[in-house]
């Protein structure tokens, strides 16, 4: 039985007097309560880190030797204001697209690359301008480039896509970002390993499949998680490249 002493609310009739104070209290808790939750949740966001598109540098044009790791990189021989000789830039196209088609015919040759830099610590990438303007053959013979093998390593860390992590997206890593990272990798954006223990002073390594193939399909299941993996590390200019052995991928705790 409904309590006869309690006021009875009928939606289309005026609110009973005895209920008004109660409802007022509910509103007074509800509205500022939501504002407070907005503040608590809004200020609980983690720092996405220092990675960013360096639009502040302006467009950079540099020359160097194109290498396919199999992901295309440029070993810089003639730098610019913000890119030094000896640096190795990972190359990517607009959005989640690769520049493989443009880089492949230029493999081992001298080329001029033009675009905007993304950086995060020692992770450096250039997003090339479209078409010929972005990457074209340069005059002259390509100097000999060395790759220095650093042996087999076992590393703990996270497989990310090199572009979002470098600052195309802030934040650009972690489980919440996994599908986005996979989509970048499916588009052949160079993958990156973020290691918890720096290797020869590097916190980021370009990552490939075994023997310099593209990242194998099974590795996609491990993207954005904390894993351990073994592989061969090699130094190309100032960039370390890790050729993983996918069979050694394991969850790290």
């Amino acid at each position, binding site marked *: *039985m*409904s309590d006869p002493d309690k006021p009875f609310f009928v939606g289309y009739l005026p609110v009973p007097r005895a209920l008004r104070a109660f409802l007022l209290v509910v509103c007074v808790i509800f509205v*500022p309560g*939501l504002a407070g939750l907005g503040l608590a949740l809004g200020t609980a966001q983690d720092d996405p880190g220092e990675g960013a598109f360096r639009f502040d540098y302006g467009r950079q044009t540099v020359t160097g030797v194109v290498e396919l790791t199999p992901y295309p990189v440029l070993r810089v021989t003639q730098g610019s204001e913000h890119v030094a000789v000896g640096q190795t830039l990972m190359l990517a196209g607009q*959005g989640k697209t690769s520049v493989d088609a443009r880089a492949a015919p230029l493999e081992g040759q001298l080329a001029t690359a033009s675009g905007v830099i993304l950086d995060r610590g020692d992770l450096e990438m250039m997003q090339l301008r479209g078409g010929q303007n972005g990457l074209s053959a340069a005059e002259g013979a390509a100097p000999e480039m060395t790759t220095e093998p650093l042996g087999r390593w076992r590393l703990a860390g996270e497989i990310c896509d090199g572009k979002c992590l470098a600052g195309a997206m802030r934040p650009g890593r972690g*489980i919440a970002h996994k599908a*986005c990272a996979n989509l970048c990798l499916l588009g052949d954006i160079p993958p990156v390993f973020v290691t918890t223990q720096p290797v020869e002073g590097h916190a980021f390594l370009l990552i490939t499949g075994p023997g310099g193939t593209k990242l194998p399909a099974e590795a996609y299941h491990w*993207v954005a998680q904390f894993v351990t993996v073994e592989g061969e590390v090699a130094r190309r200019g100032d960039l370390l490249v890790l050729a993983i052995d996918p069979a050694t991928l394991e969850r790290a705790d």
Partner: protein
Amino acid sequence: MSVKYIPVQWNSNKYLYDLVMLCGVALFLYVFLYAAPGLLSHERPINPQVHNARAFGACAFVMLTVILCIGPLARLDTRFLPLLYNRRHFGVMTVFVALTHASYIVDWYFAFSMSDKYEALLFANTSYGQLQGFPFEAFGIFALIVLIILAATSHDFWMKFLTPPVWKRIHYLIYPAYLSVVAHVSFGVLQDQQNHVFTAIFLAGATAVGGLHLVAALAERRRAPAPAADTAEWIDICDLSQMREGFAKIRLLPEGDRVAVFLHEGRLSAISNACAHQNGPLGEGRIIDCLVTCPWHGFQYDVRTGRSPAPFTEKVPTYALRLSGSTVQVDPRANPPGTPVEPVPVSGSGTAEAGV
């Protein structure tokens, strides 16, 4: 009790209700989007698209949590019933907020590739076989689809068209949808966070929903114990002295329906406790101008016939009654909805003498 279906039948209470709800939601979003970033000492800001997605996602979660708390609160304390009254509007608002969340995600994380962004949402992560890195978006998609279906069918037209039991069953999908949102967040952003404020608020919200439902269900069971299995044909409701003019006694019948027995103008009548509108508890309503008035949205029924007054056409089942000594008894076999039943007179209100 709509005779013609117009999009929304407004009244001043509904305006006020929506205004308060909108204010709360707008403030939440405003503070999250515009006040909070200034307080974060990040080296470089979070991308606005991600920040927006998070604000709307978190807001949709909070809104759903509030919506699901209103039901059990109203069952525990009838003063909360006014919050139930226009809850559907708040639900529809939630859908728009959740849709905005999903749009920011799709237009940011799943755009910029050679593939269609909606296809990419489905194939970019296919790690369905693992817990860590599970494509938690799938839970969000399920919840969003359910929310859209519920909002689209929330109008009384659909209730009438689908019939209240079917409509009600569809709307129970809100519970799987809420669980799905909990999974969406648990498999997603909760695993990434360094700052655990969101985790704490999220757990508190989900626990409040679960806890309140449990408490309300237990309280209800205590109030209306199930009848003994060996019930005879007629079922005891209560002693006549317990009946009060204008109010009802509710009783659970063996097949699971509830009957509401009213004392009105010194005579007893029994109708189904389930309102034809949204199964609101008629027995917790009142008799206003000779009509049982539902506590949820105010649909009305003549207590002697189970029919809404003309021009309305809603009907609820009625039940036969008798007095055995001073005990009010009901025949558990419901009459077809709208069947008139002669009220049982009580000689002297509140005392036990009556003819059958």
